[in-house]
């Protein structure tokens, strides 16, 4: 029982990560792939934040009445990672828009076919 509860978060992380991974490798639609990558990314965020959690700890803002804090370091890393994530996602979406303009499609196999038929 302890094992299940203690590791439950990690299992969710792995599940989400694998869902994202599956979308990236098995789906042909480029927009869906970006969503998959984002799911994968969020699962990594959750992994870090889970590691930073201390039972009974408070949010890492100093206060005299608090004795235990959760670990601030993962929070810093993930906070910046999220904003960098949206910037790179925007870049990926911009690339997709250009691909659509050039090929008229956002399906991977159709783009491959067009490349091969040249």
């Amino acid at each position, binding site marked *: 029982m302890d*094992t299940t*509860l*203690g*590791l439950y*978060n990690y*299992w*969710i992380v*792995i*599940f*989400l*990560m*694998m*869902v994202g991974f599956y*979308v990236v*490798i098995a*789906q042909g*639609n480029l*927009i*869906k792939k970006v969503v*998959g990558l984002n*799911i994968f990314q*969020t699962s990594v*965020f*959750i992994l870090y*934040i*889970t*590691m930073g*959690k*201390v*039972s009974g*700890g*408070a*949010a890492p*803002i*100093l*206060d005299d009445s608090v004795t*235990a*804090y*959760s*670990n601030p*370091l993962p*929070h*810093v890393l993930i*906070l*910046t990672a*999220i*904003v*960098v994530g*949206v*910037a*790179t*996602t*925007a*870049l990926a*979406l*911009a690339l997709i*828009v250009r691909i*659509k303009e050039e090929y008229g499609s*956002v*399906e991977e196999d159709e783009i491959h076919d067009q490349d091969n038929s040249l």
Partner: protein
Amino acid sequence: MLAVTALSVVFMRDLFAIVMLFGIYSLLSAGFFVTMEAVDVALTEAAVGAGVTTVLMLGTLAMTVRKEKARVKPSSLLPLAVVTITGLVLIYGTLDMPYMGDPDAPVHQHVAPRYIEQSYEEVGMPNIVTSVLASYRGFDTLGEVVVIFTAGLGVLTLLGVSGDRRHEKRPAVMEHHLVLKVITKALIPLILLYALYIQFHGDYGPGGGFQAGVIFGAAIILYTIIFGLTKGEQVITPLFLRYMMGAGVLIYGGTGVLSLLLGGNFLDYDVLAHDALHGQHYGILAVEFGVGVTVTAVMISIFFNFTGRSTLSKDEE
């Protein structure tokens, strides 16, 4: 909850629904971060994931296709097998992990105790996340701001619209929704005020340049959605945005150079004032301001470029 939402993403074909689900997924994970006591992270995720990312994805959909093509898949067995095996191996790996919330876990033994115990004497800020972000790990954050700046440049290069076509009059899609317009007008000052609060109160509560930048950007994006791109570009011109993008990085880097000139190390704020704590305070304020400016500018200009592009491609059709 998260798992169910993620799964439904896999089985949906309607890309519009997928994007909406992804917004819900982000909001759920923001809630999760709050329960994990990561308030700064939750604030960022709620603003970024549920707000800006969703809007950008919708913008892409407007320019591409709404439905995924139904087609015969070659075989999804191989990817499924790969995923299952990787997942099992990873789960086997977690069996050695320390349990969640264990205060004796290795992650809590190094570095973090020092931040928690001494950051108040060394930096003088109640919010440890802010002190670590802007002071102890100032180099990382500078690097991340540059990454955001580069991504913004990339989007400009890929989707940038040439000058003469920009000035065409484009009517707002939601011109006639009076209720929306009135409510937006009432909301935007509040959103902007809230963004400023988050920007400058980041030392004491959750918040800082990254979150404030995103929220500030979201306010302008909301304005543009309701009142149209032409009006939005009158509020902040694209040229000004480009200067802002560069200026934010310059403010950040300039603070570092200033501390060099005053005889300290790069980004060592102790020397910025007579008292080390005050120096830290000024330094962090300046750096967070730089971050906020760049993030705001990048978010808005990415959005402007997406919408500008989509109205253009509609014209051509």
